[in-house]
């Protein structure tokens, strides 16, 4: 019920985002309550509140804009912890199991029997952890987009997490959201051209590696998505033209 209530609050606050004088005080109070639950509420990994709380807080961010900065030191570390979760992908011998299964901790497993291969193999991963990772990166992206340059103080830490995720082996959603998040982090460095450049180049290297990998597999949809994202990231540098600075020298 708390989860549904949190979701409803998020949408209702979004409806008044253009009239901050109505929602400012409520947004601050709700944000404090939600962060208290998220950080000290002993929520398990499978608790639906994890996702609804983080989503609602990102909606509150839209209402509070710059006033939301005070909550970043509490909220961002919790998101980074989720974004760095290990999905624990494993392939092991499995002769006594059959078909697909998922345990209560969200660990999904699939048993493979291939003709000619001796014995069966079990492929398993923690799907709850993967969902948490995707959700956390999506929320970080939303925060970076909504706060713009006010998010600058968190660019290093979030960037450190998101850049490697551009090449994530298991999830397209994670790669895509990480790339988008980097676009907004690059934008958040608008007032620091050198840092902005460095951040873009680090992102670009990983994106080009991913592009090569997809090219080798003839995955043209993925290639198109990467190239479009690079183009959008480069739009962050339009102001360089006025200042006579170049991205690549």
């Amino acid at each position: 019920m708390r989860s549904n209530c949190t979701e409803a609050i998020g949408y209702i606050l979004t409806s008044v985002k253009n009239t901050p004088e109505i929602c400012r005080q409520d947004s601050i109070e709700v944000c404090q309550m939600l962060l208290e639950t998220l950080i000290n509420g002993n929520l398990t990994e499978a608790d639906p509140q994890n996702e609804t709380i983080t989503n609602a807080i990102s909606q509150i961010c839209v209402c509070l804009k710059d006033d939301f900065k005070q909550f970043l030191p509490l909220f961002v570390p919790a998101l980074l912890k989720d974004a760095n979760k290990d999905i624990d992908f494993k392939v092991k011998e499995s002769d006594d199991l059959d078909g697909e299964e998922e345990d209560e901790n969200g660990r999904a497993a699939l048993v493979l029997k291939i003709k000619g291969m001796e014995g069966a193999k079990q492929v398993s991963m923690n799907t709850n952890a993967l969902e948490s990772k995707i959700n956390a990166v999506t929320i970080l992206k939303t925060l970076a987009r909504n706060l713009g340059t006010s998010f600058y103080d968190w660019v290093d830490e979030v960037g450190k997490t998101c850049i490697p995720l551009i090449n994530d082996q298991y999830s397209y959603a994670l790669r895509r959201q990480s790339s988008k998040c980097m676009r907004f982090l690059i934008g958040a460095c608008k007032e620091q051209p050198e840092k902005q450049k460095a951040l873009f180049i680090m992102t670009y290297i990983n994106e080009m590696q991913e592009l090569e990998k997809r090219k080798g597999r003839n995955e043209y949809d993925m290639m198109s998505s990467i190239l479009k994202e690079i183009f959008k990231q480069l739009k962050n540098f339009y102001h360089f033209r006025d200042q006579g600075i170049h991205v690549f020298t």
Partner: protein
Amino acid sequence: MVPQFVKMMNEEEHLKMKQQATACMTSLIRGLLDEADEEGDDDSNTKNKKLLEQFSESIVESISRLLELSLEKKYQPLQDEVLMALSCLASLMENKFAVHYSRFMPGLKKIL
């Protein structure tokens, strides 16, 4: 369909039936939301928003009454359903929902 669902939400005697009627309303609103998402353009969203706008007052009235009732009777299935309907309606109506803000926010904060 909407007036019929609203009528059932208001007048059904059994809480379980009220819950079912609310679930139907939630599915209908979610359908409009999903359609707008799939189309991916603002026109569909505006069209669906307009479609529901004429009924929004009566839906909000029912949701508000049912939320109070479900809390009073401590009937959780109805509480959950009403909150889901509220989320979907607020999500579809966006800024048009702002007029109902003060009606729900104090109660929701209390639940939280």
